[in-house]
Protein backbone atom coordinates (compact mmCIF):
# COMPACT_ATOMS: atom_id res chain seq x y z
CA UNK A 1 0.00 0.00 0.00
CA UNK A 2 1.42 3.34 -1.00
CA UNK A 3 1.38 6.10 1.52
CA UNK A 4 -1.78 8.12 0.96
CA UNK A 5 -0.56 11.67 0.51
CA UNK A 6 2.91 13.00 -0.09
CA UNK A 7 3.72 16.64 -0.72
CA UNK A 8 6.73 18.13 -2.48
CA UNK A 9 7.40 20.53 0.37
CA UNK A 10 7.99 17.69 2.76
CA UNK A 11 11.48 16.86 4.03
CA UNK A 12 11.23 13.14 4.43
CA UNK A 13 13.83 12.00 6.90
CA UNK A 14 12.12 9.86 9.52
CA UNK A 15 9.21 9.21 7.17
CA UNK A 16 11.35 8.42 4.14
CA UNK A 17 10.30 4.75 4.18
CA UNK A 18 6.57 5.34 4.61
CA UNK A 19 4.70 3.42 1.95
CA UNK A 20 7.68 1.18 1.18
CA UNK A 21 7.05 -2.26 2.71
CA UNK A 22 10.47 -3.56 1.66
CA UNK A 23 12.08 -1.23 4.22
CA UNK A 24 10.54 -3.28 7.03
CA UNK A 25 13.07 -6.07 6.81
CA UNK A 26 16.54 -5.70 8.19
CA UNK A 27 18.10 -6.11 4.75
CA UNK A 28 15.69 -3.61 3.21
CA UNK A 29 16.52 -1.14 5.94
CA UNK A 30 20.26 -1.68 5.51
CA UNK A 31 19.99 -1.17 1.76
CA UNK A 32 18.36 2.19 2.45
CA UNK A 33 21.25 3.27 4.63
CA UNK A 34 19.99 1.89 7.93
CA UNK A 35 22.11 1.10 11.00
CA UNK A 36 24.88 3.48 9.92
CA UNK A 37 23.99 5.72 12.85
CA UNK A 38 24.54 2.81 15.22
CA UNK A 39 27.90 2.02 13.65
CA UNK A 40 28.98 5.62 14.00
CA UNK A 41 27.74 5.70 17.61
CA UNK A 42 29.98 2.74 18.46
CA UNK A 43 32.90 4.51 16.78
CA UNK A 44 32.58 7.83 18.56
CA UNK A 45 31.52 6.54 22.00
CA UNK A 46 28.68 7.37 24.39
CA UNK A 47 29.76 10.86 25.46
CA UNK A 48 30.16 12.03 21.86
CA UNK A 49 26.74 10.61 20.97
CA UNK A 50 25.14 12.68 23.71
CA UNK A 51 27.09 15.71 22.48
CA UNK A 52 25.78 15.26 18.94
CA UNK A 53 22.22 14.96 20.17
CA UNK A 54 22.70 18.04 22.33
CA UNK A 55 24.18 19.93 19.38
CA UNK A 56 21.24 18.97 17.18
CA UNK A 57 18.85 20.71 19.56
CA UNK A 58 16.38 17.81 19.15
CA UNK A 59 13.38 18.28 21.43
CA UNK A 60 11.15 15.50 22.73
CA UNK A 61 8.30 14.72 20.35
CA UNK A 62 6.01 13.22 23.00
CA UNK A 63 4.42 16.57 23.75
CA UNK A 64 6.54 18.52 26.19
CA UNK A 65 9.41 19.37 23.83
CA UNK A 66 12.11 18.83 26.43
CA UNK A 67 15.65 18.88 24.94
CA UNK A 68 16.62 15.26 24.38
CA UNK A 69 20.39 15.55 24.79
CA UNK A 70 19.95 17.36 28.08
CA UNK A 71 17.54 14.70 29.30
CA UNK A 72 20.06 12.00 28.46
CA UNK A 73 22.81 13.81 30.32
CA UNK A 74 20.76 13.61 33.56
CA UNK A 75 21.36 9.89 33.72
CA UNK A 76 23.96 8.91 36.32
CA UNK A 77 27.19 7.35 35.10
CA UNK A 78 26.78 3.73 34.12
CA UNK A 79 27.93 1.62 37.00
CA UNK A 80 26.57 -0.95 39.34
CA UNK A 81 22.88 -0.11 39.00
CA UNK A 82 21.07 -1.20 35.87
CA UNK A 83 19.83 1.64 33.68
CA UNK A 84 16.76 1.46 31.51
CA UNK A 85 15.63 3.09 28.31
CA UNK A 86 11.90 3.20 27.66
CA UNK A 87 10.42 3.99 24.31
CA UNK A 88 6.98 5.51 24.71
CA UNK A 89 4.81 4.05 21.95
CA UNK A 90 1.57 4.43 23.85
CA UNK A 91 0.35 7.08 21.39
CA UNK A 92 -3.16 7.89 22.55
CA UNK A 93 -3.39 11.66 22.59
CA UNK A 94 -6.56 12.32 20.59
CA UNK A 95 -5.56 13.62 17.17
CA UNK A 96 -2.17 11.88 17.12
CA UNK A 97 -1.33 9.12 14.64
CA UNK A 98 2.35 9.36 13.82
CA UNK A 99 4.02 6.78 16.05
CA UNK A 100 1.96 3.93 14.67
CA UNK A 101 3.15 4.82 11.16
CA UNK A 102 6.77 5.13 12.27
CA UNK A 103 6.53 1.66 13.78
CA UNK A 104 4.67 -0.11 11.04
CA UNK A 105 6.66 1.31 8.14
CA UNK A 106 10.08 1.57 9.67
CA UNK A 107 10.50 -0.64 12.74
CA UNK A 108 14.27 -0.89 12.38
CA UNK A 109 14.67 2.88 12.44
CA UNK A 110 13.09 2.80 15.89
CA UNK A 111 15.19 -0.16 17.02
CA UNK A 112 18.30 1.68 15.85
CA UNK A 113 17.24 4.80 17.74
CA UNK A 114 16.64 2.73 20.90
CA UNK A 115 20.01 1.01 20.60
CA UNK A 116 21.87 4.30 20.16
CA UNK A 117 20.04 5.92 23.08
CA UNK A 118 20.58 2.91 25.31
CA UNK A 119 24.26 2.78 24.37
CA UNK A 120 24.74 6.49 25.04
CA UNK A 121 23.23 6.20 28.51
CA UNK A 122 24.83 2.92 29.50
CA UNK A 123 21.54 1.08 29.51
CA UNK A 124 21.57 -2.61 28.74
CA UNK A 125 17.87 -2.92 28.37
CA UNK A 126 15.44 -1.02 26.16
CA UNK A 127 11.71 -1.55 26.48
CA UNK A 128 9.34 -0.48 23.73
CA UNK A 129 5.94 0.08 25.31
CA UNK A 130 3.17 -0.15 22.72
CA UNK A 131 -0.48 0.54 23.36
CA UNK A 132 -2.72 -2.51 23.33
CA UNK A 133 -4.81 -1.36 20.39
CA UNK A 134 -1.80 -1.35 18.05
CA UNK A 135 -2.17 -4.95 17.03
CA UNK A 136 -0.63 -4.82 13.57
CA UNK A 137 2.12 -2.44 14.67
CA UNK A 138 3.04 -4.69 17.57
CA UNK A 139 3.37 -7.66 15.24
CA UNK A 140 5.59 -5.70 12.85
CA UNK A 141 7.68 -4.50 15.77
CA UNK A 142 8.00 -7.94 17.35
CA UNK A 143 9.10 -9.43 14.03
CA UNK A 144 11.70 -6.70 13.51
CA UNK A 145 13.11 -7.18 17.00
CA UNK A 146 13.33 -10.91 16.39
CA UNK A 147 15.23 -10.26 13.17
CA UNK A 148 17.55 -7.82 14.92
CA UNK A 149 18.42 -10.54 17.45
CA UNK A 150 18.94 -13.17 14.75
CA UNK A 151 21.31 -10.91 12.87
CA UNK A 152 23.34 -9.65 15.81
CA UNK A 153 21.83 -6.15 15.97
CA UNK A 154 20.40 -6.74 19.43
CA UNK A 155 21.31 -8.86 22.43
CA UNK A 156 24.87 -9.85 23.17
CA UNK A 157 27.92 -8.31 21.52
CA UNK A 158 26.06 -6.17 19.05
CA UNK A 159 27.84 -5.96 15.66
CA UNK A 160 30.76 -7.83 17.17
CA UNK A 161 31.37 -5.08 19.76
CA UNK A 162 31.48 -5.36 23.53
CA UNK A 163 28.03 -3.83 23.78
CA UNK A 164 25.08 -5.85 25.06
CA UNK A 165 21.60 -4.35 24.75
CA UNK A 166 18.37 -6.29 25.17
CA UNK A 167 15.29 -4.99 23.38
CA UNK A 168 11.85 -6.01 24.65
CA UNK A 169 8.47 -5.13 23.17
CA UNK A 170 5.82 -4.70 25.85
CA UNK A 171 2.19 -4.30 24.86
CA UNK A 172 -0.34 -2.50 27.07
CA UNK A 173 -4.07 -3.04 27.35
CA UNK A 174 -5.77 0.27 26.75
CA UNK A 175 -5.34 3.18 29.14
CA UNK A 176 -4.45 6.69 27.99
CA UNK A 177 -2.75 7.52 31.25
CA UNK A 178 -0.08 4.85 30.62
CA UNK A 179 1.41 7.32 28.12
CA UNK A 180 2.41 9.57 31.01
CA UNK A 181 5.98 8.60 31.71
CA UNK A 182 5.64 7.41 35.29
CA UNK A 183 2.27 5.78 34.59
CA UNK A 184 4.03 3.87 31.86
CA UNK A 185 6.69 2.74 34.31
CA UNK A 186 4.09 1.39 36.71
CA UNK A 187 2.30 -0.32 33.85
CA UNK A 188 5.52 -1.89 32.65
CA UNK A 189 6.10 -3.31 36.12
CA UNK A 190 2.66 -4.93 36.00
CA UNK A 191 0.91 -2.43 38.25
CA UNK A 192 -1.98 -0.06 37.69
CA UNK A 193 -0.72 2.60 35.32
CA UNK A 194 -1.04 5.43 37.81
CA UNK A 195 1.41 8.32 37.53
CA UNK A 196 3.94 8.67 40.33
CA UNK A 197 4.65 11.80 42.32
CA UNK A 198 7.73 13.66 41.05
CA UNK A 199 10.39 14.16 42.29
CA UNK A 200 12.12 11.78 42.32
CA UNK A 201 12.50 12.01 38.55
CA UNK A 202 12.92 8.92 36.39
CA UNK A 203 16.62 9.59 35.74
CA UNK A 204 17.16 8.95 39.45
CA UNK A 205 14.32 6.56 40.33
CA UNK A 206 12.50 4.99 37.41
CA UNK A 207 11.54 1.46 36.44
CA UNK A 208 12.20 -0.89 39.37
CA UNK A 209 13.56 2.20 41.14
CA UNK A 210 16.51 2.29 38.75
CA UNK A 211 17.73 5.22 36.60
CA UNK A 212 15.47 5.42 33.57
CA UNK A 213 15.06 7.62 30.52
CA UNK A 214 11.87 7.68 28.54
CA UNK A 215 11.51 9.02 25.01
CA UNK A 216 8.79 9.17 22.44
CA UNK A 217 8.95 7.03 19.28
CA UNK A 218 9.43 10.02 17.00
CA UNK A 219 12.25 11.40 19.16
CA UNK A 220 14.12 8.12 18.97
CA UNK A 221 13.43 7.77 15.23
CA UNK A 222 15.34 11.01 14.60
CA UNK A 223 18.38 9.90 16.58
CA UNK A 224 20.02 7.60 13.98
CA UNK A 225 19.97 10.43 11.42
CA UNK A 226 21.47 12.91 13.87
CA UNK A 227 24.22 10.55 14.96
CA UNK A 228 25.05 9.52 11.40
CA UNK A 229 25.21 13.04 9.98
CA UNK A 230 25.94 15.17 13.06
CA UNK A 231 24.00 17.62 15.14
CA UNK A 232 24.86 20.61 12.97
CA UNK A 233 23.48 18.87 9.88
CA UNK A 234 20.11 18.41 11.62
CA UNK A 235 19.94 22.13 12.30
CA UNK A 236 19.72 22.97 8.58
CA UNK A 237 15.97 22.52 9.07
CA UNK A 238 13.72 24.22 11.57
CA UNK A 239 14.34 27.24 13.73
CA UNK A 240 17.01 28.02 16.25
CA UNK A 241 14.79 26.99 19.16
CA UNK A 242 13.03 24.18 17.30
CA UNK A 243 15.55 22.51 15.03
CA UNK A 244 14.84 19.71 12.60
CA UNK A 245 11.79 18.18 11.02
CA UNK A 246 8.56 17.04 12.62
CA UNK A 247 5.66 14.86 11.60
CA UNK A 248 2.45 16.83 11.48
CA UNK A 249 -0.66 14.71 11.94
CA UNK A 250 -3.44 16.61 10.27
CA UNK A 251 -7.01 15.42 10.79
CA UNK A 252 -10.52 16.82 10.66
CA UNK A 253 -11.94 19.06 7.97
CA UNK A 254 -9.23 19.17 5.31
CA UNK A 255 -9.20 17.62 1.87
CA UNK A 256 -6.01 15.62 2.38
CA UNK A 257 -5.57 14.64 6.00
CA UNK A 258 -2.48 12.65 6.89
CA UNK A 259 1.07 12.68 8.19
CA UNK A 260 3.44 15.23 6.68
CA UNK A 261 7.07 15.62 7.65
CA UNK A 262 7.98 19.28 7.48
CA UNK A 263 10.69 21.52 8.83
CA UNK A 264 9.66 23.07 12.13
CA UNK A 265 8.64 26.67 11.68
CA UNK A 266 6.40 25.86 8.70
CA UNK A 267 3.53 28.35 8.44
CA UNK A 268 0.27 26.93 9.78
CA UNK A 269 -1.91 28.33 6.99
CA UNK A 270 0.37 26.86 4.33
CA UNK A 271 0.10 23.47 5.99
CA UNK A 272 -3.66 23.63 6.01
CA UNK A 273 -4.17 25.20 2.61
CA UNK A 274 -1.27 24.15 0.38
CA UNK A 275 -0.19 20.86 1.84
CA UNK A 276 -3.56 19.55 2.99
CA UNK A 277 -5.74 21.12 0.31
CA UNK A 278 -7.67 23.34 2.70
CA UNK A 279 -11.20 22.86 3.98
CA UNK A 280 -13.91 21.62 1.63
CA UNK A 281 -15.21 23.86 -1.14
CA UNK A 282 -17.72 26.33 0.22
CA UNK A 283 -16.59 25.90 3.81
CA UNK A 284 -14.48 28.18 5.93
CA UNK A 285 -11.96 27.53 8.66
CA UNK A 286 -13.25 27.99 12.18
CA UNK A 287 -10.75 26.63 14.67
CA UNK A 288 -7.56 24.61 14.90
CA UNK A 289 -6.18 22.54 17.75
CA UNK A 290 -2.48 22.49 16.89
CA UNK A 291 -1.07 19.89 19.26
CA UNK A 292 -3.58 17.21 20.19
CA UNK A 293 -6.60 17.51 22.44
CA UNK A 294 -4.55 18.69 25.45
CA UNK A 295 -3.71 22.13 24.09
CA UNK A 296 -5.71 25.35 23.76
CA UNK A 297 -7.93 25.90 20.71
CA UNK A 298 -6.98 28.61 18.23
CA UNK A 299 -9.29 30.77 16.16
CA UNK A 300 -8.64 31.82 12.56
CA UNK A 301 -6.97 35.04 13.67
CA UNK A 302 -4.45 33.09 15.79
CA UNK A 303 -3.71 30.76 12.88
CA UNK A 304 -2.89 33.40 10.30
CA UNK A 305 0.54 34.39 11.51
CA UNK A 306 1.32 31.18 13.36
CA UNK A 307 4.43 29.21 12.50
CA UNK A 308 4.56 25.60 13.54
CA UNK A 309 7.45 25.41 15.97
CA UNK A 310 7.45 25.29 19.76
CA UNK A 311 7.93 29.04 20.18
CA UNK A 312 5.70 29.95 17.25
CA UNK A 313 2.62 28.14 18.50
CA UNK A 314 3.25 29.41 22.00
CA UNK A 315 3.29 32.97 20.70
CA UNK A 316 -0.06 32.26 19.07
CA UNK A 317 -1.50 31.28 22.44
CA UNK A 318 -1.38 27.50 22.26
CA UNK A 319 1.19 24.71 22.27
CA UNK A 320 2.79 22.56 19.59
CA UNK A 321 2.39 19.44 21.76
CA UNK A 322 2.81 16.46 19.46
CA UNK A 323 1.89 18.53 16.38
CA UNK A 324 -1.48 16.85 16.01
CA UNK A 325 -3.31 19.47 14.01
CA UNK A 326 -7.08 19.05 14.29
CA UNK A 327 -8.85 21.28 11.78
CA UNK A 328 -12.47 22.32 12.26
CA UNK A 329 -14.58 24.17 9.70
CA UNK A 330 -17.69 26.28 10.16
CA UNK A 331 -19.92 23.23 10.55
CA UNK A 332 -18.31 22.43 13.89
CA UNK A 333 -20.21 22.78 17.12
CA UNK A 334 -17.35 23.93 19.33
CA UNK A 335 -19.13 23.36 22.64
CA UNK A 336 -19.86 19.78 21.70
CA UNK A 337 -16.30 19.04 20.60
CA UNK A 338 -14.95 20.55 23.80
CA UNK A 339 -17.40 18.47 25.84
CA UNK A 340 -16.21 15.39 23.93
CA UNK A 341 -12.60 16.13 24.79
CA UNK A 342 -13.36 16.73 28.46
CA UNK A 343 -15.41 13.55 28.58
CA UNK A 344 -12.41 11.67 27.26
CA UNK A 345 -10.30 12.98 30.13
CA UNK A 346 -13.05 12.12 32.61
CA UNK A 347 -12.99 8.55 31.39
CA UNK A 348 -9.21 8.31 31.34
CA UNK A 349 -8.49 10.03 34.66
CA UNK A 350 -6.80 7.52 36.92
CA UNK A 351 -8.59 8.98 39.92
CA UNK A 352 -5.67 9.63 42.27
CA UNK A 353 -6.17 13.41 42.51
CA UNK A 354 -9.44 14.97 43.59
CA UNK A 355 -9.45 17.99 41.23
CA UNK A 356 -9.03 15.70 38.25
CA UNK A 357 -11.27 12.85 39.40
CA UNK A 358 -14.12 15.16 40.43
CA UNK A 359 -13.50 18.05 38.08
CA UNK A 360 -13.52 16.23 34.76
CA UNK A 361 -16.98 14.60 35.09
CA UNK A 362 -18.39 17.75 36.62
CA UNK A 363 -17.18 19.87 33.72
CA UNK A 364 -18.63 17.31 31.32
CA UNK A 365 -22.00 17.70 33.01
CA UNK A 366 -21.98 21.47 32.88
CA UNK A 367 -20.96 21.39 29.21
CA UNK A 368 -23.74 18.93 28.42
CA UNK A 369 -26.21 21.22 30.10
CA UNK A 370 -25.08 24.15 27.98
CA UNK A 371 -25.15 22.01 24.86
CA UNK A 372 -28.74 21.05 25.60
CA UNK A 373 -29.73 24.71 25.85
CA UNK A 374 -30.23 24.59 29.61
CA UNK A 375 -27.12 26.49 30.62
CA UNK A 376 -26.73 29.89 32.22
CA UNK A 377 -24.06 32.54 31.89
CA UNK A 378 -22.85 31.75 35.38
CA UNK A 379 -22.05 28.23 34.12
CA UNK A 380 -19.22 29.80 32.17
CA UNK A 381 -17.79 31.27 35.37
CA UNK A 382 -18.18 27.90 37.04
CA UNK A 383 -16.26 26.25 34.20
CA UNK A 384 -13.47 28.81 34.39
CA UNK A 385 -13.31 28.45 38.18
CA UNK A 386 -13.09 24.70 37.97
CA UNK A 387 -10.44 24.95 35.28
CA UNK A 388 -8.32 27.16 37.51
CA UNK A 389 -8.61 24.66 40.34
CA UNK A 390 -7.66 21.81 38.06
CA UNK A 391 -4.53 23.46 36.70
CA UNK A 392 -1.19 22.94 38.39
CA UNK A 393 -2.73 21.09 41.34
CA UNK A 394 -2.36 17.43 40.46
CA UNK A 395 0.18 14.63 40.15
CA UNK A 396 0.25 14.70 36.36
CA UNK A 397 -0.94 17.21 33.76
CA UNK A 398 -3.96 15.22 32.54
CA UNK A 399 -6.04 17.51 34.68
CA UNK A 400 -4.50 20.63 33.12
CA UNK A 401 -5.08 19.10 29.70
CA UNK A 402 -8.78 18.76 30.36
CA UNK A 403 -9.00 22.39 31.39
CA UNK A 404 -7.06 23.80 28.41
CA UNK A 405 -9.76 23.36 25.73
CA UNK A 406 -12.45 24.62 28.11
CA UNK A 407 -10.68 27.84 29.00
CA UNK A 408 -9.52 28.58 25.46
CA UNK A 409 -12.90 27.85 23.89
CA UNK A 410 -14.69 30.12 26.34
CA UNK A 411 -12.15 32.79 25.58
CA UNK A 412 -12.24 32.43 21.79
CA UNK A 413 -15.74 31.19 21.12
CA UNK A 414 -17.76 32.75 23.90
CA UNK A 415 -20.43 33.69 21.36
CA UNK A 416 -21.15 30.06 20.65
CA UNK A 417 -21.65 29.33 24.32
CA UNK A 418 -23.90 32.37 24.66
CA UNK A 419 -25.94 31.39 21.61
CA UNK A 420 -26.67 28.03 23.19
CA UNK A 421 -27.37 29.59 26.57
CA UNK A 422 -29.75 32.23 25.26
CA UNK A 423 -31.85 29.92 23.16
CA UNK A 424 -31.28 30.30 19.49
CA UNK A 425 -29.96 27.16 18.00
CA UNK A 426 -30.71 24.07 20.07
CA UNK A 427 -28.89 20.87 19.46
CA UNK A 428 -29.90 17.34 20.31
CA UNK A 429 -27.66 15.73 22.85
CA UNK A 430 -27.28 12.00 23.13
Amino acid sequence: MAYPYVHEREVRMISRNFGDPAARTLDGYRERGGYRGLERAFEIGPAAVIDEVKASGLRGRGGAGFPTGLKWSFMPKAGVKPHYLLCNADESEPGTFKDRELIRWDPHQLIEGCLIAAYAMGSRHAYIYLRGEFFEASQVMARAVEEAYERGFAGRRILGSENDIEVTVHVGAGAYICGEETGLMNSLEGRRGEPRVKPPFPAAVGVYSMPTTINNVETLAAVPHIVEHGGEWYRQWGTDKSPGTKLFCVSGHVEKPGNYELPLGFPMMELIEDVCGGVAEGRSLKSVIPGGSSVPLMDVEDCRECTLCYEGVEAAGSMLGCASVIVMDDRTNIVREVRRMVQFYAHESCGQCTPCREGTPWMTQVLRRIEAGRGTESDLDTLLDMSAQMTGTTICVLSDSAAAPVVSSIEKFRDEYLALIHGGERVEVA
Partner: protein
Amino acid sequence: MLTQDERNRIRAEAAHYDHPQAACVEALKIVQEHHRWVSDEHLKEIAALLDMSPEALDSVATFYNLIFRKPVGENVILLCDSVSCWIMGYEGIRAHLKEHLGVELGETTSDGKFTLLPMACLGTCDRGPAMMVGNELYRNLDNDKVDEILARYRHPSGA
Protein backbone atom coordinates in the same frame (compact mmCIF):
# COMPACT_ATOMS: atom_id res chain seq x y z
CA MET B 1 -9.07 -24.40 34.72
CA LEU B 2 -6.38 -22.94 32.51
CA THR B 3 -5.06 -25.28 29.87
CA GLN B 4 -1.50 -26.53 29.97
CA ASP B 5 -0.80 -24.42 26.91
CA GLU B 6 -2.03 -21.27 28.62
CA ARG B 7 0.09 -22.01 31.66
CA ASN B 8 3.14 -22.59 29.54
CA ARG B 9 2.68 -19.39 27.62
CA ILE B 10 2.19 -17.38 30.80
CA ARG B 11 5.34 -18.87 32.31
CA ALA B 12 7.27 -18.09 29.14
CA GLU B 13 6.09 -14.47 29.24
CA ALA B 14 7.03 -14.14 32.90
CA ALA B 15 10.52 -15.39 32.11
CA HIS B 16 11.11 -12.29 29.96
CA TYR B 17 11.07 -10.05 33.01
CA ASP B 18 13.04 -9.80 36.24
CA HIS B 19 9.75 -9.81 38.16
CA PRO B 20 6.93 -12.13 37.05
CA GLN B 21 4.28 -9.51 37.85
CA ALA B 22 5.44 -7.51 34.83
CA ALA B 23 3.87 -10.18 32.64
CA CYS B 24 0.44 -9.92 34.24
CA VAL B 25 -1.30 -7.92 31.52
CA GLU B 26 0.09 -10.27 28.89
CA ALA B 27 -1.12 -13.22 30.97
CA LEU B 28 -4.61 -11.78 31.18
CA LYS B 29 -4.59 -11.34 27.41
CA ILE B 30 -3.46 -14.92 26.84
CA VAL B 31 -6.43 -16.13 28.85
CA GLN B 32 -8.76 -13.80 26.98
CA GLU B 33 -7.61 -15.23 23.66
CA HIS B 34 -9.31 -18.51 24.52
CA HIS B 35 -12.07 -17.43 26.86
CA ARG B 36 -12.72 -13.85 25.66
CA TRP B 37 -12.91 -12.61 29.26
CA VAL B 38 -11.29 -13.26 32.63
CA SER B 39 -13.42 -15.05 35.20
CA ASP B 40 -12.71 -14.97 38.95
CA GLU B 41 -11.47 -18.52 38.77
CA HIS B 42 -9.01 -17.76 35.99
CA LEU B 43 -7.91 -14.60 37.74
CA LYS B 44 -6.93 -16.63 40.81
CA GLU B 45 -5.01 -19.14 38.73
CA ILE B 46 -3.08 -16.43 36.89
CA ALA B 47 -2.30 -14.64 40.15
CA ALA B 48 -0.87 -17.84 41.61
CA LEU B 49 1.33 -18.36 38.55
CA LEU B 50 2.74 -14.84 38.83
CA ASP B 51 3.18 -14.72 42.59
CA MET B 52 0.54 -12.05 43.05
CA SER B 53 -2.52 -11.88 45.26
CA PRO B 54 -5.80 -12.16 43.31
CA GLU B 55 -6.77 -8.73 44.67
CA ALA B 56 -3.62 -7.12 43.33
CA LEU B 57 -4.15 -8.73 39.94
CA ASP B 58 -7.79 -7.68 39.87
CA SER B 59 -6.88 -4.08 40.59
CA VAL B 60 -4.56 -4.19 37.57
CA ALA B 61 -7.10 -6.01 35.39
CA THR B 62 -9.81 -3.48 36.03
CA PHE B 63 -7.48 -0.58 35.22
CA TYR B 64 -7.27 -1.41 31.53
CA ASN B 65 -9.96 -0.94 28.89
CA LEU B 66 -9.06 -4.09 26.99
CA ILE B 67 -9.21 -6.54 29.88
CA PHE B 68 -12.75 -7.79 30.30
CA ARG B 69 -13.90 -8.98 33.69
CA LYS B 70 -17.38 -9.72 32.38
CA PRO B 71 -18.37 -11.94 29.47
CA VAL B 72 -18.21 -10.32 26.04
CA GLY B 73 -19.46 -11.45 22.64
CA GLU B 74 -17.56 -13.40 20.02
CA ASN B 75 -16.40 -10.13 18.43
CA VAL B 76 -15.68 -7.00 20.39
CA ILE B 77 -16.28 -3.80 18.46
CA LEU B 78 -14.23 -0.86 19.69
CA LEU B 79 -15.68 2.31 18.26
CA CYS B 80 -13.29 5.25 18.43
CA ASP B 81 -15.06 8.11 20.17
CA SER B 82 -12.39 10.78 20.28
CA VAL B 83 -12.40 14.25 18.87
CA SER B 84 -11.29 13.73 15.26
CA CYS B 85 -13.75 10.87 14.72
CA TRP B 86 -16.49 13.03 16.21
CA ILE B 87 -15.68 15.77 13.77
CA MET B 88 -15.85 13.28 10.91
CA GLY B 89 -19.23 11.78 11.74
CA TYR B 90 -18.88 9.46 14.74
CA GLU B 91 -22.42 10.06 15.93
CA GLY B 92 -23.98 8.81 12.72
CA ILE B 93 -21.90 5.64 12.82
CA ARG B 94 -22.73 5.10 16.46
CA ALA B 95 -26.45 5.44 15.77
CA HIS B 96 -26.17 3.06 12.85
CA LEU B 97 -24.26 0.45 14.83
CA LYS B 98 -26.71 0.63 17.72
CA GLU B 99 -29.63 0.18 15.39
CA HIS B 100 -28.03 -2.50 13.27
CA LEU B 101 -27.00 -4.55 16.30
CA GLY B 102 -29.97 -3.67 18.49
CA VAL B 103 -27.77 -2.83 21.48
CA GLU B 104 -26.59 0.18 23.43
CA LEU B 105 -22.91 0.96 23.98
CA GLY B 106 -21.51 -1.54 26.46
CA GLU B 107 -23.96 -4.29 25.54
CA THR B 108 -23.74 -7.64 23.77
CA THR B 109 -26.12 -8.75 21.02
CA SER B 110 -28.61 -11.44 21.99
CA ASP B 111 -26.94 -13.97 19.68
CA GLY B 112 -23.65 -13.34 21.46
CA LYS B 113 -21.91 -12.32 18.23
CA PHE B 114 -20.94 -8.73 19.05
CA THR B 115 -20.19 -6.49 22.01
CA LEU B 116 -20.19 -2.78 21.23
CA LEU B 117 -17.79 -0.62 23.24
CA PRO B 118 -16.72 3.00 22.89
CA MET B 119 -12.95 3.38 22.84
CA ALA B 120 -10.51 6.21 23.41
CA CYS B 121 -8.69 7.53 20.34
CA LEU B 122 -7.51 4.65 18.15
CA GLY B 123 -4.79 6.81 16.63
CA THR B 124 -5.97 6.83 13.04
CA CYS B 125 -7.50 10.29 13.04
CA ASP B 126 -6.78 11.07 9.39
CA ARG B 127 -9.17 8.30 8.41
CA GLY B 128 -12.04 8.60 10.85
CA PRO B 129 -14.60 7.49 11.76
CA ALA B 130 -12.80 4.34 12.81
CA MET B 131 -13.44 1.15 14.74
CA MET B 132 -11.74 -2.10 15.54
CA VAL B 133 -13.43 -5.48 15.40
CA GLY B 134 -11.25 -7.88 17.34
CA ASN B 135 -7.73 -7.07 16.22
CA GLU B 136 -8.70 -5.58 12.86
CA LEU B 137 -8.84 -1.85 12.29
CA TYR B 138 -11.44 -0.35 9.93
CA ARG B 139 -11.40 3.27 8.84
CA ASN B 140 -13.22 5.89 6.80
CA LEU B 141 -16.45 4.24 7.92
CA ASP B 142 -19.85 4.94 6.46
CA ASN B 143 -23.07 3.01 7.03
CA ASP B 144 -22.63 0.70 4.04
CA LYS B 145 -19.10 -0.13 5.00
CA VAL B 146 -20.20 -0.95 8.53
CA ASP B 147 -22.88 -3.33 7.20
CA GLU B 148 -20.40 -5.03 4.94
CA ILE B 149 -17.87 -5.47 7.74
CA LEU B 150 -20.41 -6.86 10.19
CA ALA B 151 -21.73 -9.28 7.57
CA ARG B 152 -18.23 -10.69 7.23
CA TYR B 153 -18.10 -11.44 10.94
CA ARG B 154 -21.60 -12.92 10.91
CA HIS B 155 -20.74 -15.31 8.11
CA PRO B 156 -16.98 -15.78 8.40
CA SER B 157 -16.85 -18.27 5.51
CA GLY B 158 -18.11 -15.58 3.16
CA ALA B 159 -21.30 -17.62 2.62
